[in-house]
């Protein structure tokens, strides 16, 4: 107890540990998997990503050519990135942002 009281006073006199998130943004490490996106012009619409996505978050159509991601299904596993033959799917560092 005594040592905790000690450390309580230490905490009281030192700056907070808080990251102050919305005001200050954290430096995210390299390789962080955030939101998934595509460099659409490289894509061949082969559909490999759609087939492998464990969460059925992707929809690829050849005609018309479109690649659709449902961020509310994507589990950010990165499997699509691995399987894409063109390596055109990318994971941004920052997270998907909630909508209203």
């Amino acid at each position: 107890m005594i040592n905790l009281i000690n450390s309580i006073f230490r905490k009281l006199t030192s700056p907070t540990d808080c990251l102050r998130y919305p005001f200050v943004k954290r430096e995210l490490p390299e390789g962080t998997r955030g939101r998934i996106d595509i460099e659409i012009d490289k894509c061949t619409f082969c559909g490999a990503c759609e087939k492998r996505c464990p969460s059925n978050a992707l929809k690829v159509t050849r005609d018309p050519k479109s690649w659709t991601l449902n961020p509310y299904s994507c589990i950010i596993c990165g499997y699509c990135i691995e399987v894409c033959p063109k390596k055109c799917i990318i994971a941004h560092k920052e997270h998907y942002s909630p909508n209203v």
Partner: protein
Amino acid sequence: MIRRNTIPFGPQHPVLPEPIQLHLVMENEKIIQALPAVGYIHRGLEKIAEKKDYIQDVYLAERICGICSFMHSQNYCQGIEELMKVQIPDRAKYLRVIWAETHRIHSHLLILGLLADAFGFENLFMRLWKVREQILNIMEKTTGARVILGVCAIGGVKRDITPELSEYILRELEAVEKQLPELMDSLLKDYSVKQRLIGVGVLPKDKAHELGAVGPVARASGLRMDLRETGYAAYGDLDFKMVVGEAGDCYDRTMVRVKELYTSLDLIRAALKRMPQGPISVAVKGSPPADEVLARIEQPRGELNFYIRGNGTRNLERFRVRTPTFANLPALLHQLTGCELADVPVIAICIDPCVSCTER
């Protein structure tokens, strides 16, 4: 004259972030009988696993539970590797140990923090979780995610730990270890904490064995039982001392976890030091044969069992998950009987319950 009181404890109850109902029958506040009602978090994961292919199942297995998610994927991959007779590179084994042990640390810190919250020690809870964030930083930096890592794959692992990262890890571990003694003293030596833990929820050794308790719960009761001793992954090459208690009360369970924090820290350091160079994965071709396997590893909460049965296709025939909490539930019911209502949260948290993996 004393009468029976009946109350539901859960599913929406702040002390249990997970939905489970304990049906408590009490005399005044003394528990006479406790029964669990589960199923609030049953997703039918075993069936989903049969529908997805066996590689997608790695991601599914990770989401059996988010706390020691890595170990679920590790156990699943080890099971499939055994089934398909794949030999993975040594470096991958060491990497698996490193991530598994960081997971153990984060899980133990988490539960110790929740335990502190359960007996109303908010300060300690906050401080422990603050330390835990540093462990999460290690995971984020090495794998790209904070809790569900997604680095384990059939045939090895997906990411490597470079020498720079290794140094970073050692530095962080150092910082974590520096903060621990003060907090651990509060957990183990503080008068008020001891009042709440010692002699509470006693599980004698023979009862623990009979009820099939596993993990820290079993070890705190004096059972020597830690699957890491069987030497899966790289544990065979690494030394560690199993922590056992004797009284089998909440205090001993806490003590076991506290000491295991240090064991895990040492294991990570040793693994980082002795990790051989080489590839981190091998390519795996084909599908799991029509055979069955029971894969087991030691999770933070105890022994995890996956029964995996293939049928020669990319889909599994049967995937069954028996998690440590499932094994510890009967022991929990035994401990709850006769305790005070005030001790219910403490005892419940002390078995480190994870309902989501229990119900899948």
